[in-house]
């Protein structure tokens, strides 16, 4: 039975977690495709995910080639909507063709990438969050200026057969 097919990770082996560097991924799912809309990097908490489905999409946080964190999740393409009138409930499950949802994951020091694989283990999302600092941007900009100048000078240098 599908409802029983969940991975219950014993707490003994669960990674210690708490207030740390995290990434919140803003995702959009539509027509069977998953898109990354935004990634927010900050300090905070993330869900322990002690209970996971046995199959579905898989997210991995990478430090180089090493997976430092991963979990399995299902696309939440359904929502329960309930309303009560005199304590009697009506409503039910709504199947969603498209949905926006987010995943909060640890993003420890050294981590450089978050990757999401679909049910068939194909990579569907990859993000590199590291942004260069102003100093690095200045140095890179400077190198670019020098290269451009060098190219310009080389072009302007007279050819050996010119009359100039």
């Amino acid at each position, binding site marked *: *039975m*599908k*409802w*029983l097919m969940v991975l*219950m*990770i*014993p*707490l003994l082996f*669960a990674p*210690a*977690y*708490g*207030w740390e560097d995290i990434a*919140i991924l*803003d995702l959009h799912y539509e027509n069977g495709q998953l898109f990354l*809309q*935004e990634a927010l990097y*900050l*300090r*905070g*908490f*993330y*869900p*322990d995910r*002690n209970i996971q489905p046995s199959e579905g999409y898989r997210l991995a946080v990478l430090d180089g080639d090493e997976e430092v964190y991963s979990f399995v999740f*299902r696309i*939440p393409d359904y*929502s*329960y*909507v*309930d*309303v*009560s*009138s005199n*304590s*009697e*409930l*009506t*409503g*039910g*499950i*709504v*199947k969603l063709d498209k949905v*926006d*949802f*987010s*995943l*909060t994951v640890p993003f420890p020091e050294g981590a450089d990438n978050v990757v999401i694989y679909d049910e068939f283990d194909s990579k569907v999302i990859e993000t590199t969050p590291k942004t260069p600092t*102003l*100093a690095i941007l*200045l140095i890179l900009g*400077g190198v670019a*200026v*020098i290269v451009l*100048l*060098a190219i*310009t*000078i*080389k072009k302007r*240098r007279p050819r050996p057969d010119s009359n100039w």
Partner: protein
Amino acid sequence: MAKKGELTGIHYILIAATTMILIIGGYYFISLVLKSSEKTQLANLRLSMENSFKEYGTGFTGAPGSAKDVSFSVPEGVERICFVGGGERNQFLDEQLETYLKEVPNKNVFFFPFEKFEASFVDFFELEDTPLCIIPRGGAISLHLVSTGSGVKVQAKEGREIGCSSLRYSRDYGKAVDIVFVGSGYNDDSLAADSESYIATFLSVEPFKSKQDLFNFFIAEGDAECKIGDFVSCDHFQASRIASKCPNDFMVVLVSRDNVLNVLNPVRSSAMTNLLSLNTADNRMVFVHEFGHGFSNLADEYTDDAFYQKSGFKAEEYPNCDAEDCGKWKGKLGTGCFGGCSLSSYYRSTEDSIMRSLKSKDFGPVNEEVLRSYLEVYE
């Protein structure tokens, strides 16, 4: 060969390299000057606060028990200031601050971002609860000082940041089901009281009642800005951003709604994975019902064929609905086989339950067993 006075390639490269050195050097020089200026401003702020606390608190200008408001300019770039002292401690206010406190234990005023501004020690103040974090407004912080005779009791006049506060903390958050409440549309300070009433209802129901020590409850500061249409619709990303201030296995967004307005236009509460969006005008038991969906994949036991026929609902994917033989719970004490479980064509185990109506005060043996099996992970 280059003529005298003509610039060659090497000259251009030298000029470019010199320009680059000047730019980088200039950048670092300006950074140093700014840093030095920030240091001076921070030192001035520290001195101003301490003098003010001392003068007002020790009786030079204020008699014990008297109070006054005072503002201090803060250096540009300071995002918030946290005072740390005696008083009741709220450990989840800011764990980054907690970490920093361990690194510099002899300081008691901290400036965000920590990497940019050095912490200070300021004398002659105490706090009612610690830390007291304030977000500067218009380049200043406003404090309310109450003279104690030996110093001042410091309160925030405005801009106090709550961050995350715990409502009920039973065990280490790595080993608990952490439920965080987030408000939407609250114009007053009733979110904490509302959250408490939801918690009381939740913990009055088995199996949660006898497993209370497995749950932590928190409030995270921020407005989830949910939309209200036929049902409450909260942005998962926005809710996650706010909830990340606290341990957050489950996010419960309370959408403040007027009872009278809700009678005229009833709005549905909803559950999507670990996000429960609740209409506060609705019955409190709706929280318990939605948690059953989100935590243990329990299906609705009421029937609404119009809704469920469109959703492709299959009883085999849920623990509490079955075909007419009710084989999933056959022989289990206190169960039967009652018609109607999400769809009229499926069957449920009890006449009534929280997954069927909010009049019921229990889940019934089948649902309770499922919930207990999920809770075992945390034991």
